[in-house]
């Protein structure tokens, strides 16, 4: 069950905010229920899937595109004021909505709404739904904040370990080279001493040869 409540202004009462509630089961295109209220009275009506298909045919629009237009007009909320005109007659209950383009407007859809007998109950249910949605969003918000903090801690932890790894890699390289140089220089010193000894022995041998 999906539901969306948005503010609209009626062409006949532009200074009074009205609220439009649209609710549907799986998909908007499968039909939906409209509820309109001014905070004092409420009217409700249903638009069936066949009526949606018929309307789409009548205005020569692909059904999917038409449902998308319905979504923008009745469900999206933001921007509806600029692009859509809502007309409602309390006497007849006729509710219609037009899409307004540059210099032209065309009828997007219409439905007859019946006045609700127990308006107070409908308004209570609407306010209750809003409060529940607020609570759910606050809980989601809380959860996301905690997730956010956890992710930040995790990132900070890995970043620290990465920095340590970079430092320790540099330190390892330096350390190994230093140790290697010490051991290598020992070998070089040995080679030098062997060379010296060899030269001395060869010199001695040469002198002995000369003496003989």
């Amino acid at each position, binding site marked *: 069950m999906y539901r969306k409540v948005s503010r609209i202004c009626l062409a006949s009462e532009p200074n009074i905010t009205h609220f439009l509630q649209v609710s549907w089961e799986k998909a908007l295109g499968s039909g939906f229920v409209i509820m309109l209220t001014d905070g004092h009275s409420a009217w409700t009506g249903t638009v069936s899937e066949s009526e949606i298909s018929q309307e789409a045919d009548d205005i020569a629009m692909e059904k999917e595109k038409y449902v998308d237009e319905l979504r923008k007009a009745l469900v999206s909320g933001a921007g509806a004021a600029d692009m859509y005109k809502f007309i409602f007659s309390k006497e007849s209950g006729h509710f219609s909505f037009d899409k307004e383009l540059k210099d032209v407007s065309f009828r997007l859809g219409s439905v007859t709404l019946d006045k609700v007998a127990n308006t107070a109950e409908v308004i209570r249910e609407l306010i209750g739904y809003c409060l529940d949605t607020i609570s759910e969003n606050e809980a989601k918000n809380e959860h996301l904040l905690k997730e956010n903090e956890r992710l930040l801690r995790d990132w900070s932890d890995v970043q620290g370990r990465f920095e340590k790894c970079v430092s320790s890699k540099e330190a390892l390289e330096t*350390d*190994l080279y*230093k*140790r*290697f140089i010490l*051991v290598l220089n*020992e*070998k070089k010193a*040995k080679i030098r001493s062997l060379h010296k000894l060899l030269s001395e022995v060869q010199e001695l041998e040469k002198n002995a040869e000369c003496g003989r």
Partner: protein
Amino acid sequence: CPSTKQHFAHEYDCYGDSYFVDTDLDQLKEVFSGMKSPS
């Protein structure tokens, strides 16, 4: 004793690495690990 000392001094450097016998990964790691920190 002096002779043993002399023998080892002839065969190994002051870090315990042999002058004559080829080293390998394990031996060199052992020599390095026995060295005090160069810094």
